[in-house]
């Protein structure tokens, strides 16, 4: 007996990610502290680099592997690149993070890598079983990652909330997949499509119920309204690097599977789900943007903003054309850049101020950015660019992305959805602009003479020497580590402060957002083959 043929070349990025996760986990067991704190993240970056290299090696592949369970095509490969970029940024943001130290560096990074592996699997899933496996492989490490700041109540709460709601979402999706299997007798996407077209099953009640449940399940993952309620709480509670990862990577994976599942397997039933998803997209745009207004926590604000952005991107799914797929993927790439720039700044600010400093400033509050334009231009500019890009202002990649999405929506006959996108952008100015205003148009709070017993002015010298104890929270174990970290802090660039890698992420992501806003052709080249890969017009 000969075993089935395995195309290792096609599987290689996935193998690199999951195998790398195992290696990272084992290396994390080594004793030396520098190995855990420095070598493990470096190794994780190396694994991501290897996966990226293998992805590029496969660049022109167009094949189904593992007996049709996975499809390696340009959609999968492009999403892999985007996911790996998001993952690499996350590793850099988490380099000195409390979360990685508390949970163990090996465990943290292994979980991160397996989650990326799940996303990569999801992006190439070509049957419903692979889809579900990918989704769970993505989700379960994320539940844990959310709770990695083990001594902070909110982090645990966030992990638990995400676990419960995520499981409901997964279960819903599984029901849906089962019903579609019941109706069509197939798990393979192309077989489902054939069954739907040939037997007139597209309007069968069982199919429709299945589709509805699948929409609901995936909407939980992509935080599409009205299934988004978990998003702000989980984003706010999770450690910020993890939030950044969730915000970008989960969205990429969820929308990737939306594209492949709905625009390939269920394309025959487009007439039934198209209008429904379009309405969901419009509701999401409205709910996300209105919800973000008046938030004082940047993480909550970005959570609602990510809900709104999911709504924009659904527009590309709804039209089910090659143009729509390309627009969605392009927007996903841009979305990763914009959000990474913003989250990097939040990470930097949180560490500088401390999650909750004695003066009542919260690290992720908009107030914490006051005076940043003057004090820390290398953080203020990326944040400014990111906010402008998220709002869709020209000369940033966000504008190009939105332009392409509206173009796709109008071409696909959903002009009203295009108008909904611009109305959403209008509302979004109401919360993006105050962030910019805080950075450039307000002095750092001390300059204004905040009411209160001890403005930072008076007590500046003492607490600054011990900034790390604030960062280290109440853990004795960490207080022990603090001096060592403090030492590292002193050696940082004067410009970049003590965290050059975080500033690097901010500057790179912000710079790329600007660059692709002026010269977008590389992005268009990247997504060029994506639409035709799905066999759409």
């Amino acid at each position, binding site marked *: 007996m000969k075993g089935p043929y395995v195309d290792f070349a096609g599987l290689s990025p996935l193998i690199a990610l999951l195998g790398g996760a195992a290696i990272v986990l084992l290396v994390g067991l080594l004793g030396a502290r520098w190995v855990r704190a420095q070598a493990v993240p470096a190794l994780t970056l190396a694994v991501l680099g290897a996966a990226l290299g293998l992805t590029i090696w496969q660049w022109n592949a167009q094949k189904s592997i593992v007996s049709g369970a996975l499809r390696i095509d340009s959609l999968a490969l492009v999403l892999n690149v985007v996911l790996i970029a998001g993952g690499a940024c996350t590793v850099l943001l988490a380099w000195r993070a409390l979360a990685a130290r508390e949970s163990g560096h090996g465990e943290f990074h292994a979980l991160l890598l397996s989650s990326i592996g799940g996303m990569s699997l999801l992006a190439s899933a070509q049957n419903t079983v692979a889809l579900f496996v990918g989704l769970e492989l993505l989700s379960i490490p994320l539940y844990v990652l959310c709770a990695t700041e083990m001594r902070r109540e909110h982090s645990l709460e966030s992990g638990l909330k995400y676990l419960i709601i995520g499981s409901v979402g997964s279960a819903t999706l599984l029901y849906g997949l089962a019903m579609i299997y019941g109706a069509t007798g197939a798990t393979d996407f192309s077989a489902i499509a054939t069954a739907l077209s040939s037997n007139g099953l597209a309007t069968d009640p069982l199919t429709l119920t299945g589709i509805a449940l699948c929409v609901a399940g995936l909407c939980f993952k992509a935080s599409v309204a009205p299934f988004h309620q978990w998003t702000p709480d989980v984003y706010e509670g999770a450690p910020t690097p993890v939030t950044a990862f969730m915000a970008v990577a989960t969205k990429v994976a969820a929308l990737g599977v939306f594209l492949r599942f709905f625009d390939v397997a269920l394309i025959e039933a487009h007439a039934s789900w198209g209008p429904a998803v379009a309405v969901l997209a419009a509701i999401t745009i409205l709910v996300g943007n209105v919800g973000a207004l008046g938030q004082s926590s940047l993480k909550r604000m970005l959570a609602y903003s990510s809900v709104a952005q999911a709504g924009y991107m659904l527009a590309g799914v709804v039209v089910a054309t090659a143009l729509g797929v*390309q627009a969605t993927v392009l927007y996903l790439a841009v979305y990763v850049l914009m959000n990474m720039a913003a989250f990097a700044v939040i990470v930097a600010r949180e*560490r*500088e101020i*401390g999650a909750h*400093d004695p003066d009542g400033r919260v690290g992720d509050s908009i107030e914490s950015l006051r*005076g940043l*334009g*003057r*004090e*820390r231009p290398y953080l203020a500019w990326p944040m400014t660019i990111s906010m*402008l890009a998220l709002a*869709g*202002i*020209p*000369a940033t990649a966000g*504008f190009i992305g*939105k*332009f*392409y999405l*509206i*173009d796709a929506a*109008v*071409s696909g006959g959903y*002009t009203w959805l295009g*108008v909904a*996108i*611009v109305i959403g*952008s*209008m509302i979004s*100015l*109401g919360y993006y*602009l*105050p962030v910019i*205003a805080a950075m*450039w*148009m307000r*002095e*750092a709070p*001390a*300059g204004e003479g905040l009411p209160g017993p001890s*403005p*930072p*002015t008076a007590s*500046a*010298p003492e*607490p*600054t*020497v011990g900034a*790390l104890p*604030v960062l280290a929270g109440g853990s004795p174990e960490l207080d022990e580590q603090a001096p060592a970290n*403090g030492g590292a*802090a*002193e050696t940082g660039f*004067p410009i970049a*402060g*003590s965290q050059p890698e975080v500033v690097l992420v901010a500057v790179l992501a912000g710079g790329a957002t600007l660059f692709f806003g002026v010269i*977008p*052709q590389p992005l*268009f080249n990247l997504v*060029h083959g994506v639409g035709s890969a799905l066999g759409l017009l």
Partner: protein
Amino acid sequence: MPLSILVWLPAACGALGAILCTLAGRGHVPAPAPAPAAEQTTVIDSDPSAASLPPRGAAELSRSDSAMRIPGALALAGSLLALALAIGYIADYKAGGGPQHVTDVVWISSLGIHYKLAITGLNVFLVGLTTLLFAAAALATNLRDERSRPANPRLFWLFFMLAESAVLGAFLAQDLALFVVFFDLMLIPFYFLTGIDWDPAHPRGTREERVKATIKLVIYTLVGSLLMLAAAIATGVLAAQQGGGHITFVLSSLQALPLSTGSQEWIFLFFAAAFLVKMPAFPLHGWMPDGYRAMPIEVLMVFSGVLSKVGAYGFLAIVLPLFPQGAAHFQTLMLLIALASIVYGSALAFTQTDARLIAGYSSVAQLGFITLGIFALNPQGAQGALLQMVNHGLVVAPLLFIVLLLSQRAGGSEDVRAMGGIAFRAPVLASLFLIVALATLAIPGSSNFVGEFLILLGVFKAKLAIAIIAFSGVVMASVYALRLFIRAMHNRVGSSVDSREISIRDGAVLVPLIAVIVLLALYPQFALHRSEAAVKATIVRIP
């Protein structure tokens, strides 16, 4: 690509100035960040900002003047060079020709967006106006005394020059998507120019007011222009579907593929929203008073003089040629909005006491006239509108600069009640002001008179009743212009007025602007002749 040089030269100068200033400044004074480190504090925490703020502020003032002057000097050089280039283009413009000096490069091929710039009869004088006003404003800011110069010259000039580039780009763009890009882009520098406190010694209102004003300004304007974005994309897509070809946004190609009447009508409304907010026209002017109060007056000179014209220019260059049926369908509505703007703007202009807002509301009225001319939908009206756009820019900028001079003489107040009697010791200033005031009220012999005359002639042909009411605007203009002049220059001497003659440096800003007003008054045909063919082409397809 010579036109690209004109467009991007200002922004390049702004960026270069910022870079050079940073490099030069670093050598002299240790950058502020290490200072706290010397005091045994780590950089990691909230960077004891307050403790080090006053010394840092002082350090910035004393920080080698030469380094801090680089951005301003470069910006002035850049804007003057742009002015020289623009004059060259005006001189070179051949009347009656089509687009000239065309630059056409594919920018985003997948979306059919071209980077297409050209000089046309519609934009040639507006480009001249833009470069002139930006040069004048740059000069005025550079000639300010040491203390009241922008506190952070790098950022100020970066945004100021970026604004000039964006405005020039909007005027020159011959591709609908490119126009939208520039139209939205020009808002961003003005957002920062309005919101940041450039002159902490003389703050313009409280910080809260200013931040509110900027957010209002941006939201109003972007609401309009985002609707325009959707409409622009729809135009390209629908035209491509109709023509069956590849999607394109080049204006001339779009013109060849007229949309159905139904599409034209809703698209027209979206575009109109953007342009009317920008102008601003009566029901959509809510951002104007706060915005005007919050801006530094040099910035306001270009904002009021130039940005409002982009809206009017958009109607002429984009809406009328691309959506003629839509324009015809909403003609009456637009004329009524214009009329309301005239009446409302004039009425408020002569009840305000803040000299800036008198200028602001008079602009609402003047832009009302311009809209009126455009939507007369005949050659006379459109020509008058185009001439009046240039005239208004030429008049409002010196007017605002005079407001600055007056406030310097009235103890810093811009309230006309605090002024008075200045003419007594400042006859030259008074005469220059009188010329501007008379041009504002369109006295016969001024170029404004020609403009308003043509506009009213056009409207008479189109809608008689509206023209008759619009005449009241002409009368009201003389009331508010003369009221401002009399209250500020004559009457009893104000309590804290310290009347001085105009200085040479102020004259250097004011006299060239007034010289252009006089020249255009002597020979308006110069502008009319060159724009005639282009204006006729824009309305030729109106049903």
